[in-house]
């Protein structure tokens, strides 16, 4: 034990050696990271267009309704699956690969495993999205992909999990950083989650009454035990690293990890409050949801205290700007989620657009924004080229920040009005629908802003891959406030 913990004495390792080693590690992740990031951005654009179409259809139901494959009930799940698996998961995997290599302080091994996973992954998403549009969708929320697609995703997940375990085994001795805990947990939880849910709902379906429980055990855990750990692992690395300031309390970060692992996995039933389930089952989920206060507040305090006093850094660091935005929205989304699990409030928000707003606050304002931040940090180091245009980055930030802010606000307000109307039996159902119409129009406007932001980002990404513009500084050192001169990469 003691031998594995012994580190080389600092004096024997020069900064130049460390820089060279880091460059080798970054470089070793290039192909898989670019594959996952590139396809993620492709699916982000596809998913945005599907989302816009679905949103417009609620404003104008006669839009493109002559074809079955573009009906609202197919476009909406196609959007969800394209962004959840095609974009968010792939962006998360790309980020996690790079983080694992850096934190294990070892060049990425077995990249063939990852390249195969990326290929399986994208074929699976393509088949699944086309499958939903052509009518093979299963109408099981978050698990609509038909079996021929989900099987390919499972193979990809499996390959990645195996790879993560191998990387962890070959890590350099030293402390296990909290991000590695989160990543390793996510990589082991998710294949189990995904295979169990698909087995019980799609391959060997169980009875309907039990399907609801399994469906939301999966749906909620996909957010809590897959996206949340990856998002937090990224924030726990990037915020300290960009600021050059260790995390405020390492103890709190570890406490946050274990309380998340304990409570989050029990949350799912709060999607079924009042439904045909035993009261204790739903109550257990409500209790676990309220207990989420512990990991959420722990993480919020920790991130805030780390950034505190350095908020002006948000002005000069694109990575930090996106990441801190995401970390703050994690707190907001989680607190909102806790409140929505309380039955008296759930009565209003259940079955309304409020829930849709909440989902976007979690998956977009928290997770997606952190992924953008990670891409801004990782890609220059992997490609060996600085982002070509700071202006494009600023446009990207403001378009998506205003877009998502507006979307969450209008869906929340519209959802509350809708929910109060639904709760009052004296108001006709049609009137509850009328309350939502102006807000659904504004939601479409916010969707246009988001899509515009995504197009700007895709342009920026393409220019970076083409190595457009002039090489401004060494990628691993750009923006240093230490006044160091850029040096050529010496690998």
């Amino acid at each position, binding site marked *: *034990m003691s031998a594995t913990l012994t580190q080389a004495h600092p004096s024997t390792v020069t900064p130049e050696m460390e820089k060279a080693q880091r460059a080798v590690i970054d470089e070793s992740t290039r192909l898989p990271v670019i594959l996952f990031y590139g396809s993620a951005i492709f699916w982000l654009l596809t998913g945005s267009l599907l989302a816009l179409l679905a949103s417009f259809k*609620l404003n104008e*139901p*006669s839009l493109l*309704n*002559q074809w*079955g494959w573009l*009906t*609202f*009930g*197919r476009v*909406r*799940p196609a959007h969800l699956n394209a962004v959840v698996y095609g974009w968010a998961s792939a962006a998360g995997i790309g980020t996690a690969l790079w983080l694992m290599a850096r934190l294990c302080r070892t060049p990425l091994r077995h990249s063939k495993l990852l390249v195969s996973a990326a290929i399986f992954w994208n074929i699976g998403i393509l088949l699944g999205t086309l499958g939903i549009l052509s009518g093979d*969708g299963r*109408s099981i*929320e978050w698990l609509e992909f038909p079996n021929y697609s989900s099987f390919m995703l499972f193979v990809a997940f499996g390959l990645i999990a195996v790879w993560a375990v191998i990387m962890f085994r070959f890590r350099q001795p030293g402390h*296990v950083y909290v991000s590695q*805990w989160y990543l*390793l*947990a996510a990589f*082991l*939880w998710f294949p*189990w989650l995904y295979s*169990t849910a698909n087995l*019980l709902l799609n391959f060997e*379906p*169980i*009875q*309907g*009454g*039990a*399907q*609801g*429980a*399994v469906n939301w055990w999966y749906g909620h855990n996909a957010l809590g*035990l897959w996206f949340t750990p990856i998002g937090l692992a990224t924030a726990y690395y990037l915020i300290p690293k960009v600021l050059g300031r260790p995390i405020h309390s390492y103890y709190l970060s570890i406490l946050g990890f274990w309380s998340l*692992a*304990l409570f989050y*996995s*029990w949350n*799912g*039933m709060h*999607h079924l409050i*009042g*439904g*045909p*389930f035993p009261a204790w*089952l739903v109550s257990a989920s409500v209790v676990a949801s309220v207990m989420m206060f512990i990991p959420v507040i722990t993480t919020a305090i920790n991130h805030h205290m780390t950034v505190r006093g350095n908020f002006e850094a948000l002005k000069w660091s694109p990575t930090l700007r996106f990441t801190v935005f995401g970390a703050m929205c994690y707190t907001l989304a989680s607190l909102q989620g806790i409140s929505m699990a309380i039955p008296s409030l759930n009565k209003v928000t*259940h*079955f*309304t657009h409020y*829930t849709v707003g909440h989902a976007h606050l979690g998956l977009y304002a928290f997770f997606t924004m952190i992924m953008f931040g990670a891409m801004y940090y990782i890609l220059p180091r992997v490609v060996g080229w600085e982002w070509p245009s700071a202006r494009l980055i600023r446009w990207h930030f403001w378009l998506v920040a205003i877009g998502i802010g507006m979307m969450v606000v209008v869906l929340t307000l519209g959802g509350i009005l809708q929910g109060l109307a*639904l*709760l*009052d*039996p004296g108001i006709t159902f*049609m009137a*509850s*629908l009328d309350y*939502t119409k102006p807000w659904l129009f504004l939601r479409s406007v916010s969707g246009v802003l988001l899509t515009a932001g995504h197009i700007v980002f895709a342009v920026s990404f393409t220019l970076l891959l083409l190595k457009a513009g002039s090489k401004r500084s060494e990628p691993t050192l750009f923006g240093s406030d230490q006044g160091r001169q850029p040096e050529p990469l010496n690998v």
Partner: protein
Amino acid sequence: MNRMPVIVTGIFLTFLSSWVGLVAYPYLALGRYTPVTDEATGDINPPPLSGLAERGQQVYASAGCIYCHSQQVRQVGYGSDLERGWGARPTVARDYMRENPVFLGTMRTGPDLANIGARQPSVMWHHQHLYQPGVVSPGSIMPSYKYLYVTRPIEGQRSAEAIDLLPPDTAPDGYEIVPTAEAEALVAYLLSLNRNYPLPEAPEPPQ
């Protein structure tokens, strides 16, 4: 090198507890229902679906009706489901024993359909509604499902199954709009949605 097994064990055990509670338990307790025979009437509840309705269930899944319509009547104290007349009693797990996939739903952009077969028992109403929702439900934002229908020239007599009471210019003169097999199946499924029968754990409340 003794960290790996402990981390992995911890990660699996925390997850296992929710697996036991939210997957294994529901499977054992909610996934093995049998139908109940009503001693007074001899009815089997929940009633089995006809072959046509079973196909309609898959059309319902394929068209994604679940993204706007729930199929659950919540218990007293959780919303106005009963007051709105969406069902005679709250639904219970046994009601869904024949459902695959289950369409509990999470959105009510449209009304609940748990008992739509009892609330709207007319075949023609459903065809009119699916073909042009605004005709029978003004202000609705439900899309038209005209892709489930064909417009064809009338040969001799107008077909019995052709949809009537649509606005005059919906189909050109000499044409009629008839449901496809999928539309017939979907309507058969919608009409089968009637969960107002009594169950031992959910007796119908006195009117």
